[in-house]
């Protein structure tokens, strides 16, 4: 999906979200309306009733019936809104009046002022809210306004802490420095510069606090500590309802629902406002996705020479990966990729970021993130068909026949467990080794990947390893069950240059020892030149060229490969762009019908954009996806040796 579309979708989602917020704001408005116009709306006096008309059910006269004392429940609910909102306003008003200035002071002044104030806050907040409120009410005595003042004082602590935190953060911002330089005094800085900038989180907190205050009012009134006989409070209505619950259950419903809806509305408005201010939360699920078996008609035709090898270990035909688009429909990020990896062979899969090379590799393992869909006419590993296998069947392949090494070794290891445990886990899962056996084998593996003092390092956690050593742990983990194929996704990209070479040497050494094959995904042609037997070049979701490394480097047959080669040496990680090819890989939904590279290609002709270009055989046992392959003479590099020299100056 394109960046523009994604942000469009975010905007729509945000708008939808704020529509819900508007709806809840309307509910708040309705409660406010009832509160203000209570004397007009309420048909009866909320405090007075005829005891002879007690406990009546809902009727035309009394919409919600009457309580034990014959008072009209509907009128009491309407007046209850008044009590709820007034107490909310009182508590939050007091909280804001105390908490915000003290928080500003504490955060801005720092030092002893801050320390003393924060100790007080800490002490007050270590007492549970209701216990504290009760202790303070014991000083002031019960009563609606007194108890809500107490609630306000307690809430002030929360607000003070929040304001302080935000002020501390804001104080470090440049604009405050700027204001200080021009000679603004402390009050001016606090109220003109800091306060406006910390207002959004305070608005959110205050809104949520009103909801909290309404619950507190109901609770205290229910306990008999808040509203007394002179006020119709939802909380005291519930206390009355409890008394007569065996005669009339209905009385418990209206006040409870009134509290629920009002509190919910304030909470939702608060959350909605927070979402408007904040960045959108990520959403994602477990990244598992089986490979579906695609319709195989066209793929049964032999792929062009160059992509295929005789008796391959891994054989992929017509692999397609697509993701749903926010606006509907699907966008294909990998289109009909076919490739083979021979036994004991290292195949380099090369491309810029966005070319689909990593997605291709992950899809083989069923590890494409959830909304994605992977289909292929065949994915055969060592004679075993992987398409159509459910998650649990694929598990026997993952980690056992196919090991993976990822780009960021430290991030790829679980920080909460020791490395020994994580490597042993594979062995215990697949080979059923006991704890002691697994440990022994892990030591062996660590020796094999040249980790010094293997027995000691087993019990260390990933954060105690350097990047290079962590990558050795990852390699040991991938090799634990002696897989036939190792998928290495940018295994050296995140490492220091000196360590890169060591890790590549290790991979070559392990290939010699075990005879496994390696699918090496990289954007770095220098790495490919060093280690790969064959190379497959991807551009914008398609394979554009494939063949023996030597041949491809000497005489590329696709203009994109030429561009990659003439960009050597370079540091793509730093710039992400190819100096010799203008522009970047287009986003998947902007891929043209015809040649995907045509827009950036210096050799493009009108026919390049005429229709889909097929991958075709090219001289030197290769395949290329360029209609002009035969007429172009592209520049390569004179043998891989030259690349190595160029790469390591």
């Amino acid at each position, binding site marked *: 999906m394109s960046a523009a579309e994604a942000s469009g979708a975010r905007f729509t989602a945000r708008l939808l979200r704020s529509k819900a917020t508007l709806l809840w704001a309307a509910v708040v408005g309705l409660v406010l309306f009832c509160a203000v116009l209570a004397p007009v709306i309420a048909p009866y006096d909320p405090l007075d009733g005829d005891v002879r008309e007690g406990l009546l059910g809902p009727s035309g006269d009394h919409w919600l019936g009457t309580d034990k004392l014959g008072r009209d429940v509907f009128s009491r609910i309407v007046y209850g809104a008044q009590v709820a909102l007034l107490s909310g306003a009182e508590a939050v008003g007091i909280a804001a009046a105390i908490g915000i200035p003290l928080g500003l002071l504490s955060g801005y002044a720092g030092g002893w002022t801050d320390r003393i104030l924060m100790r007080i806050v800490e002490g*007050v907040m270590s007492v549970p809210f209701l216990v504290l409120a009760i202790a*303070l*009410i014991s000083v002031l005595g019960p009563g609606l306004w007194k108890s809500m003042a107490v609630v306000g004082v307690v809430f002030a602590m929360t607000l003070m802490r929040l304001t302080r935190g935000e002020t501390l953060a804001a104080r470090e911002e440049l604009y405050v420095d700027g204001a200080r330089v021009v000679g603004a005094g402390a009050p001016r800085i606090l109220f003109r510069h800091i306060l406006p900038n910390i207002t959004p989180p305070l608005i959110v907190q205050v809104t949520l606090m009103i909801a909290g205050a309404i619950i507190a009012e109901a609770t205290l009134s229910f306990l008999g500590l808040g509203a007394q006989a002179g006020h119709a409070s939802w909380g005291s209505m519930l206390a009355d309802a409890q008394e007569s619950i065996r005669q009339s*259950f209905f009385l*418990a419903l209206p006040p*409870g629902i009134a509290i629920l809806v009002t509190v919910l509305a304030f909470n939702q408005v608060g959350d909605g406002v927070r979402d408007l201010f904040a960045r959108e939360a990520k959403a994602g699920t477990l990244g598992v996705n089986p490979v579906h078996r695609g319709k195989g008609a066209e793929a049964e035709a032999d792929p062009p020479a160059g992509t295929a090898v005789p008796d391959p270990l891994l054989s992929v035909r017509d692999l397609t990966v697509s993701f749903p688009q926010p606006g509907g429909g699907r966008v294909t990020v990998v289109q009909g990729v076919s490739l083979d990896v021979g036994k004991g062979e290292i195949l380099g899969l090369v491309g810029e970021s966005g070319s689909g090379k990593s997605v291709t590799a992950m899809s083989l393992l069923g590890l494409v993130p959830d909304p994605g869909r992977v289909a292929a006419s065949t994915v055969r590993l060592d004679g075993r068909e992987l398409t159509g296998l459910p998650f649990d069947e694929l598990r026997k392949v993952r980690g056992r026949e196919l090991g993976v090494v990822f780009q960021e070794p430290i*991030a790829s290891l679980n920080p909460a467990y020791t490395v020994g445990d994580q490597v042993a886990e594979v062995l215990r899962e697949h080979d059923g080794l006991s704890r002691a056996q697994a440990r022994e084998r892990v030591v062996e593996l660590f020796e094999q990947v040249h980790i010094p003092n293997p027995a000691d390092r087993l019990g260390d956690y990933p954060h105690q390893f350097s990047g290079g050593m962590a990558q050795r742990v990852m390699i040991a983990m991938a090799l634990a069950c002696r897989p036939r194929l190792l998928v290495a996704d940018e295994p050296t990209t995140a490492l220091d240059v000196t360590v890169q070479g060591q890790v590549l040497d290790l991979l070559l050494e392990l290939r010699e020892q075990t005879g496994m094959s390696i699918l090496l995904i990289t954007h770095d042609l220098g790495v490919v030149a060093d280690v790969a037997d064959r190379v497959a070049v991807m551009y914008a979701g398609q394979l554009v060229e494939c063949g023996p490394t030597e041949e491809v480097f000497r005489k590329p047959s696709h203009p994109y490969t030429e561009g990659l080669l003439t960009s050597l040496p370079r540091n793509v990680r730093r710039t992400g762009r190819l100096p010799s090819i203008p522009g970047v890989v287009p986003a998947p939904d902007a891929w043209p019908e015809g040649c995907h590279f045509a827009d950036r290609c210096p050799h493009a002709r009108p026919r390049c954009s005429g229709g889909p270009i097929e991958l075709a055989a090219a001289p030197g046992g290769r395949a290329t996806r360029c209609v002009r392959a035969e007429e172009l003479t592209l520049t390569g590099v004179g043998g891989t040796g030259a690349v190595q020299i160029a790469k390591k100056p």
Partner: protein
Amino acid sequence: MLRTVVIRLAAMFPLVFLVATGVFFLGRLSDIDPAENIVGPEASEEQVAAVRHDLGLDRPALEQYADWLSGAVRGDLGQSVYTKADVSASLLQALPVTLSLTFGGLLVGLLLGVPSGIWSALRAGRAGDRAISLFATVGQAVPGFWLGLLLIFAFAIQLPWFPSVGYVAIDQSLTGWLRSLALPSVSLGVVAAAAISRQTRSSMIGVLQQEYVRTALSKGLSKRRVVVKHALKNAAVPIVTVVSFQVTTLLGGSIVIERLFAMPGLGQLAIDAVLRRDPDVIQGIVVLTVIIVVLVNVLLDLSYAWLNPKVRAL
């Protein structure tokens, strides 16, 4: 590890002292006079003064404070001015009720909150997730005592499965104890469950996108193992933080629930004391709850070290 425990425990003393002192002097600011309450509105000035003298309330505040504090450090929290009952003894009697209820509420909160949060995170954005999120949003807005009222009606009156009021001590009858705690625990725990569920969901969603989760999958582990072993432990730190807030909230919330279900816990004690202003009882309750809260927080802090090896190294 032991050193951390000792330091944390030592650090709680100044806090408890600060709170105890604060609540004592706040109490002296009150213009509600227990002596007047005791003798009633008809009594003469002299009678009130006599009662006040008997209770020692006419002495200077500092002297009363020194008296109370020296008792408190020896575990003697004074006595009720009305019933003359020993405060420490009353608290000890009420404490098991409140702790049982708080623990029950916490259990309900964890059992409902954590699995539903995980379940929701695994389906983020789909119908199941939206349903759970809706429940959590509503759950946070439901007053616990109203929920309790509904539960009493449904499961004590309509279907007489549980007692509607009262508390059975565990040493009298285990099943009786469990039955008497069932409805109160649910009423108390639902709000906590909602908060825990929301936190679990958001922290799981963050962890599920981490690369080590992909690594765990690439090892061929089962989904259950990936979620429960690899993801949950990393997602747990923010969940534990919310749980520690919830313990404080539950302890406070138990006051209302005790009142609703007429359970003889700290809440009942507190409400009786506040309505007639019984200073020593109030002080005792505040000090005791602060100690509980601080102890729970020390325990939860220690769990961070187990959950996050990086903290252990420090």
